[in-house]
């Protein structure tokens, strides 16, 4: 199955990975100067059909963030939605522009996001070192730098619910733009909504769904549908 990407953030170097990471695959094609038609197609079809639903329901790193935030000793902090534009900066710079144009002496680009990705450190770097004693002497300063980035991400997630998804994840940035017209649509019955903020209290990304239907930040986890005035419908054609 590793010949196909699946639109969740799962490092393909993880010992348990069965599919390829879409962000790693995109960078691989960009660094080699090829066009990733299949990967872009899979990401696009998923986005058009269900928006960011894979972030809310299937992403292993998203699941881990939910667990971490549940056991957090810190008070949950709300952040401005404007910080969400950082996702597009990470996507543009580390996934598209730098791998395409920052070339080494052999004319090949670098997979910048993979080198910074805390999901890769957690799902692949640490397990590979634990499983394979032969790799341990190879781990150097760069591995320590990656572990520090992972610790900072964990701290962020402990303080801000789904902090990585909201501020950093380039895959979420790509899928999120389709939320405006995807087949899965969350609808608020505005004639009955009394703005009781049940949806806001339930939402892991702090969205007022009655003000932000189709927002690119929404991960389509459907937690807000616990309010009787919020429903979802699925329609492709």
């Amino acid at each position, binding site marked *: 199955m*590793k*010949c*196909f990407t699946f639109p969740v953030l799962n*490092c*393909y*170097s993880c010992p348990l990975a069965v599919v*390829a990471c879409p962000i*790693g*695959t995109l960078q*691989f094609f*960009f660094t080699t*100067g*090829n*066009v*990733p*038609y*299949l*990967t*872009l*197609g*899979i*990401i*696009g*079809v998923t986005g058009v*059909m269900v928006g960011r639903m894979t972030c809310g329901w299937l992403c292993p790193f998203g699941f881990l963030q939910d667990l971490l935030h549940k056991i957090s000793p810190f008070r949950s902090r709300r952040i401005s939605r404007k910080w969400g534009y950082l996702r*597009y900066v990470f*996507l543009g710079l580390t996934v*598209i522009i730098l791998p*395409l*144009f920052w070339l080494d002496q052999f004319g090949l680009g670098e*997979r910048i996001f*993979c*080198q910074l*990705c805390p999901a*890769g*450190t957690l799902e*692949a*770097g640490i397990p*590979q*070192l634990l499983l394979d004693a032969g*790799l341990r002497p*190879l*781990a*150097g300063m760069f*591995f*320590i*730098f*990656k572990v520090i980035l992972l610790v900072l991400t964990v701290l962020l997630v402990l303080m801000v619910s789904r902090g990585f998804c909201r501020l950093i994840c380039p895959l979420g*940035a*790509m899928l999120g*733009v*389709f939320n*405006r*017209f*995807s*087949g899965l649509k969350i609808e608020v019955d505005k004639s009955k909504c009394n703005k009781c903020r049940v949806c806001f209290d339930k939402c892991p990304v702090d969205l007022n769904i009655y003000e932000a239907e189709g927002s*690119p930040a929404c991960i389509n986890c459907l937690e807000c549908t616990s309010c009787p005035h919020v429903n979802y419908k699925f*329609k*492709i*054609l």
Partner: protein
Amino acid sequence: MRNKIIVLILSFVLLALPAVLRPKTPKQRQGLRLLYLSAFLVLIIIGMYHSEYKDIYVNAITLCLSCIGIK
């Protein structure tokens, strides 16, 4: 260089166009959805025609030592 320009155009169409168009009515949403769905299905067919999945497989089974912080 040609491929890089294709990548940049595809990235723009993929990301910027839905944000710029901002469909308002259900009909507009449905139209845009069908347009994008057919475009992405064409991309998948092109990718399968180029046997792109073989490259993905070779990349994915190679243990990426630098990416996991081991150099």
